[in-house]
């Protein structure tokens, strides 16, 4: 494990993403850094760039977390949520 990898893994080093939202906090989605197929699926559920996302409850231990988006609630794991970048 090099130092470089360690830095990349921490949430604060990269751009703000869904995992930076605290419970009840909202943010505007900027983009989804995932393959087209995965991004499309998330967009169909309401994770569209320019839309607001609110962090709701979470599973015990904080992962996965529930997000309110476009009138519904969707749970995502941390590993997925880090790829949804906020403005």
């Amino acid at each position, binding site marked *: 494990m090099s130092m470089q990898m360690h830095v990349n893994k921490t949430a604060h080093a990269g751009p703000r993403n869904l995992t930076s939202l605290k419970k009840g906090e909202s943010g505007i989605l900027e983009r989804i850094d995932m393959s087209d197929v995965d991004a499309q699926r998330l*967009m169909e559920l309401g994770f569209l760039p320019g839309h607001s996302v609110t962090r709701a409850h979470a599973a015990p231990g904080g992962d996965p977390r529930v997000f309110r988006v476009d009138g519904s609630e969707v749970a995502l794991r941390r590993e*997925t949520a880090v790829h949804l970048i906020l403005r």
Partner: protein
Amino acid sequence: MDDCHGPSVATLPPPGTSGKQHIVAIVGPPNSGKSTLFNRLTGLRQKVANFPGVTVEHRMGRAKLGHLREIFVVDLPGVYSLQPRTEDERVTHDVLAGTMKGLPKPDAVMLILDSTNLSRHLSLAAPILSLGLPTLVILNMADDLHGRGGEVDAKELAKQLNTPVVLISASKGTGVEKVFEFLNGAPQHLPPKPPLLQLPVLQNVPQVRDWAANMSRRTNFRAPAPPLWTRRLDGIFLHPVVGPLIFLLVVIGVFQTIFAGARPMMDAVAAAIQTSGKWIQGTMPDTALRSLIVDGVWSGVGSVIVFLPQILLLFLFIGVLEDSGYLARAALIADRTMARIGLQGKSFIPLLSAYACAVPAIMATRTIENKRDRIATILIAPFMTCSARLPVYTLVIAAFIPEKPLLGLFFGTRAAALLGLYVLGFLAAIITARLLKSTVLKSTRAPFILEMPPYRWPTVTSLVLRLIDRARVFLRRAGTVILAVAIVLWVLANLPLHNGKPPAIGESIAGMIGHAVEPAIRPLGFNWKIGIGLITSLAAREVIVGTLGTIYGIEGTTQSMGLQAALRHDLTPGGAAALLVFFAFAMQCMSTVAVVRRETAGWRWPIIQFAYMTVFAYVFAFLANRIVSLWF
């Protein structure tokens, strides 16, 4: 242990006198109330079917219209779009385009949308209306919409979309008569004119979503207030401390009810079967036919029907959990634990159902989008202790383990042995899952996405329909496969005739088969009679109980003994332990093999699974026999 016959291939019954059969398809996003509406329209006149060549399931039913007329309704999988990315989407697209084999192009479409989430759900209207089929747009959950202060102008939406729109509540039944009106006129409906707001040319997600937003704005849609009750309940069910406790209570409650609560009902069924068997014995003359009916059919089929109450209770629970919305919360809570063995939250419920029966459990894996996770779940599901193993466990434990209290009055040696067998199956599942997920089924990084539907009261209609469906499937299996096995076994056990009399069981055809396999199973401590049981139980595990009942009933030395005493006479303690372990691990169930073949669309996985489980079972049964024989 039900659903023996996988759903049949989609076929329409021969056309009636009216000529062409008319078909109307129901399409909608997940959680829009498609199934509730389908149940309302078709009631009990429905069946589950599969399209040839794909693993996607659909339900087909007949909606009764007035004047002896009927119309076929097809319930398609829930989709958000018709982009053929997943199998569900491809099937829905192909059916609506009329290119699906085995199903003519539908005459009309019913597009069902959740009115409380109209802006987003309207997105599906764009690709559906582009198809040019006569379409009825159904805005469901009207009660919920109004209850939370939302509003939608159905007339205006109809004008804007240029197609009829109705506002209904499928669960309460309000407005359903308007759907019937549409069905009544289905053959004459004309293709819709294009909507006033031009459909997006490029149907990508952002453009379609913009179109839907504009459309709902034009119809003065007022979104309802957030579902307060759902948020309050989530505050409890997803509470960091209370949530997991409730989760555990639910799981324990399900188990307790299935095992303890079902007991009186099972006893009642068993008593009824016994009494009726005796009655037949008393009324019929002593002929071979009587022997066939009483010794073959009644004891064989009867020993299986006893499990009906248990199966129904389990499906009642799953139905309540699913319809109320708690199932999604359970998946959320279970996700992290399941992730440790390489699976995910959505595998939890199928695996929990596998404790009743692997067949519906394997069918329930359809909710797992990730193919590799799904196959891994399918492959480990049969290790979960299904209720078909219970009669075998109960019989052998009662015969060999004396009841002694371990923890007061509530937990004795027999319960401990039973629990131990459950743990054994669970451990085998975990080991196998780890093995699979770290080798052949290593996951691609497909995201785990779980929608959290609002909490709703389950409706009695939906629960009752589900239970009737389960009971029908289970009884059909008891009336076909198990009946056939019972009859074939009785015939094999009574042939060839010696001087016009049935032979001793050891000299019958069944006995010869048993003797033939004996060398292979002797290391496990089994004799030829158990061998016959192992072969017949390939059809279904619980069949071994009926088989042994038949064999011991026919054989002279054990005829007067009860089944338990006969087993003690026949098996060493080591052999009994081996028998338990063998049944814990072996895939002795043709229905499971059949459903795995169907769900994985080929023979590869079921063959691998069957071979793996049989070898696993043989090795550990051998060890169990050796180890136990050291002490007893």
